[in-house]
């Protein structure tokens, strides 16, 4: 057996162990997060492993995917629309137009003071007009029953549709970001993308008209064909089936729902892997590796480095966006407050690196493994602490340690991360 | 005759994969110049690195002034008075020219102003550019910095891997002259050269390496005179 197979078998055992020792529901729900993380890790791997782009804006693209779910599948808020929908749309169009105009002018005019001033003037004026048009409409929309609505709502379309839309939204953002920031290198690109992600999330947190901001949107519909447990539990056919097999209806229904998601997510994951493996083992992939190794030389050999960087940045980000949409539609709610860089950017990076950058299966492995760890240490942490302190006499110190047990989550994760990187410093499945 | 001042004897080893060196021996006497020539990929640089301890040898040994130094780290060899200019990546690109030279004198505790002045004499362009980051220099200028850095060490043996690659004829002549001068002060010089005819001209001893093994070994003049060597390795 080769290394890949062995590691995946080990992984399967971990999940199975979780199923046996804890519960299958837990194992499956961790698997779901693992699959989603794997897809995000794939997106990052496409950018980093293939082209050496240090993107730390993953959180932003995930969030945009989530936003897509609201925009596509939430029910429209008619009162909100009537109050200010057209105004907001006009405002946004005006804003976009003034940026476009500024870019146009910048590209057309000769470099110099005049260009600087004209562009600035257009932008400032554009900003003023934008605010003037959009502010009243935003006010109107947001004051429409703020406790339950206050937003424009979505289009009320099927949730499944939101996945590609999430990808598109992320791709569009990636295009804009790439156009401006891809000239930056390594850590400078990293901080720029990190910053842009913060900006995206800041907008989502604060623009209530868009998706209720920090007040969250919940009860988003599930993607076809995933059923609701509550309905299953009331469905006579299902109950009949369950009793025939001797299952508990609650357990059976929750497991079936999760299995539905597992199937959906796995399909998406496999499709993405298939596409990216094919691309990697083709002249396209070779060109990308050349660019990663030495941009200057690749450029001199006729490869349009800027364009390729943009292309791969968009592709990778779209993958992350799709995963973001999948996650939100699974959770059934959009909570902008949950988007933090530790969880959605750095943890994904850990997955990519631990898995082995440049290797798609590595990313999947990293995603499933670190995803599992991240969620399981919550259960293991206190247990470990209990084990560690079992030899200690009762008393202040032991109590203190036991109380600190939840904080062992990060500590445990850290230790394991260090161990993995120690024994396979180039990741578990190093890329070539 | 006693053992040479520096000798890498019957060295066998490589970069982890297949062996590159196969029982290769190179040596230099005190105050003499030894030149290694050979086709690209023959293992010349590898042999130099091996002598400097930057490569794990599978067999063979390195001796300096009779002492076995096979087990020493490159740093310790520096402390023992060995100086080395690698073929590539031989300057500190982010540091100024002057700082590069100062780094050459890092292990020296005495005043190195004189040596610095000598290096500037030898390469006047460096004096002009002394406050510029070395990474902004032209290819030939970088090479001058690299050699200058090694000269700053005032080593007892100086190892140069293609010191003249990319330098202009006038500087090359200067450089060779200087190398002769340095050797006359008692410093041993071991160098790899592709400008082989000029190099062998000033060499006391020449080695022709092919595929990690010694093919010819003789005095510089004798190798120059050997038609076979001239045709196959010195470009006729």
């Amino acid at each position: 057996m080769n290394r890949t197979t062995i590691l995946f078998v080990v992984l399967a055992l971990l999940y199975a162990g979780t199923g046996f020792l804890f519960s299958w529901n837990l194992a499956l729900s961790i698997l779901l997060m693992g699959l989603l993380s794997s897809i995000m890790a794939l997106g990052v791997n496409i950018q980093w492993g293939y082209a050496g782009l240090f993107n730390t804006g993953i959180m932003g693209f995930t969030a945009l995917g989530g936003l897509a779910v609201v925009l596509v599948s939430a029910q429209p808020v008619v009162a909100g629309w009537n109050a200010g929908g057209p105004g907001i749309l006009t405002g946004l169009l005006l804003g976009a137009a003034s940026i476009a105009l500024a870019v146009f002018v910048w590209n057309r005019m000769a470099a110099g003071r005049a260009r600087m001033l004209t562009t600035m003037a257009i932008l400032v004026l554009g900003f003023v007009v934008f605010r003037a048009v959009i502010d009243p409409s935003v006010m109107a929309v947001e004051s429409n029953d703020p406790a339950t609505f206050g937003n424009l709502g979505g289009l009320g379309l099927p949730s499944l549709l939101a996945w590609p839309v999430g990808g598109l939204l992320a791709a569009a953002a990636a295009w804009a970001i790439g156009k401006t920031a891809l000239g930056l290198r390594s850590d400078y690109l990293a901080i720029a993308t990190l910053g842009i992600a913060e900006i995206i999330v800041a907008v989502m947190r604060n623009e209530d008209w868009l998706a209720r901001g920090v007040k969250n949107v919940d009860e988003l519909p599930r993607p076809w064909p995933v059923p609701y447990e509550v309905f299953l539990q009331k469905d006579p056919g299902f109950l009949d089936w369950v009793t025939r097999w001797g299952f508990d209806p609650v357990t059976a229904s929750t497991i079936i729902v999760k299995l539905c998601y597992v199937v959906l997510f796995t399909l998406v994951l496999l499709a993405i892997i298939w596409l990216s493996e094919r691309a990697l083992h083709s002249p396209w992939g070779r060109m990308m590796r050349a660019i990663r190794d030495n941009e200057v030389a690749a450029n001199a050999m006729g490869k349009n480095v800027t364009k390729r960087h943009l292309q791969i940045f968009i592709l990778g980000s779209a993958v992350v966006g799709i995963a973001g949409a999948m996650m939100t539609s699974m959770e059934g709610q959009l909570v902008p407050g949950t988007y933090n860089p530790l969880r959605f950017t750095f943890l994904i990076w850990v997955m990519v690196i631990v898995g082995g950058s440049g290797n798609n299966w590595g990313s999947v492995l990293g995603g499933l493994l670190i995803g599992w760890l991240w969620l399981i240490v919550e259960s293991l942490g206190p247990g470990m602490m209990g084990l560690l302190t079992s030899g200690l006499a009762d008393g202040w110190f032991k109590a203190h340690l036991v109380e600190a047990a939840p904080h062992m989550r990060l500590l445990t994760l850290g230790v394991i991360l260090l161990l993995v990187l120690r024994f396979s410093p180039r990741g578990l499945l190093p890329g070539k | 005759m006693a053992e040479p001042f520096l000798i890498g004897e019957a060295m066998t080893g490589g970069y982890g994969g297949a062996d590159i060196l196969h029982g290769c021996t190179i040596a230099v006497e005190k105050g003499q110049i030894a030149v290694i020539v050979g086709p690209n990929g023959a293992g010349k640089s590898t042999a130099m690195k091996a002598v400097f301890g930057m490569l794990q040898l599978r067999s063979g040994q390195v001796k300096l002034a009779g002492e076995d130094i096979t087990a020493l780290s490159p740093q310790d060899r520096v402390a023992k008075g060995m100086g080395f200019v690698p073929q590539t990546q031989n300057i500190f690109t982010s540091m100024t020219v002057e700082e590069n030279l100062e780094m050459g004198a890092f292990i020296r505790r005495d005043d190195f102003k004189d040596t610095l002045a000598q290096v500037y004499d030898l390469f006047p362009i460096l004096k002009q550019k002394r406050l510029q980051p070395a990474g902004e220099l032209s290819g030939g200028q970088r090479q001058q910095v690299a050699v200058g850095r090694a000269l700053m060490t005032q080593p007892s043996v100086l190892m140069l891997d293609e010191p003249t690659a990319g330098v202009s004829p006038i500087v090359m002549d200067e450089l060779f002259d200087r190398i002769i001068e340095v050797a006359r002060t008692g410093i041993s010089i071991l160098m790899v050269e592709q400008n082989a005819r000029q190099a062998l001209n000033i060499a006391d001893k020449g080695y022709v390496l092919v595929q990690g093994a010694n093919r010819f070994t003789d005095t510089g003049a004798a190798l120059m005179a050997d038609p076979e060597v001239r045709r196959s390795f010195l470009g006729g």
Partner: protein
Amino acid sequence: EDVKLGVLIGFTGPIESLTPNMLASSKMAVDEVNASKLFLDGSTLTVVEADSTCTDSAAATSAAERLVTTDGVAGIVGGDCSGVTGAVLQNVARPNGIAMISPSATSPALSTAEDDGLFFRTAPSDAREGEVMAGILMEKGLKSVALTYTNTDYGKGLAEAFATSYTALGGTITINAAHEDGKADYSAEVGALAAAGGDILVVAGYLDQGGKGIIQGSLDSGAFDKFVLPGGMVGDSLPAAIGPGLNGSFGQIAGSDSAGAATFEAKAKELGFDGTSAYSPESYDAAALFALAMQAAKSSKSADYAGKILEVANAPGEKIYPGELAKGLQLILDGQDVDFEGATAVELIGPGESAGRYREIEIKDGKIETIGFR
């Protein structure tokens, strides 16, 4: 039988300093129940902890998943922050039919969330507190305030509710500025608030988070010298940290004139934790409600007892205060009605949330003093 009760709160993350007290409070109730030996024919109640992280709904969901499917808890005290609470409710509690009583999720949105009758909370919705606070300010004749809120569903919801009531009563809000918790510096916020001015600064935040930073900054720079402190800002650690500068500030926190609150605080002190810490009393009440409802239903199945929660929480019946859980369990055993008052004068209304009695407080000589109720 050993009945397990999950406590799902953020032991790590932005409210990690509140949760130890919340946990201790819940445990206090559980210990009381166990000490009585009256619970469900000699059953015991055990607490199983789980970390909601307050912000990471995936982590919270999987933690809840573990509580329900692995530990087999009969009910969940939690979650804490409204965001993760909603996620757990929809993705774990409802599918598995497990009841939740949140001590601290106060978002108005949760009032209308689909819950199959499984979700309750011992903290009132922020909508109510906003009204109360506006009323207090108007009575004091403060007609113009600057407002800052923590940028969470809690802070935002409270700020919106307050702004609506206050402007309706004729007040002016000079600026309505959000602040993020756990940030390094609040100079920008203080600067903006100071520039906008106002009679007083309303700080709808958390006492050991950004809210404290803003108060400190405002006092230091002389921007404001009086503050209105809603529930999240009321706790002994605030006057202790800020010092005399806080004297004269006032506010309100969910609570009632019942003897309950005081008893609870005293008992907490005995046990060595801070009973005035935000959402501690609510946590006690949440855990206690589970015990009483299970007792009333004679079952630890959510489907059975969820319906009883409102019954035991509200009149009619004998009032039960902290420390009297044994009495309550006995009464129920005897087939009598109880009206659990607990530490916060629990009164569940509408879809199962606290009606919202508020205790008006003022800081005097570095102490939080109760000056009335409404």
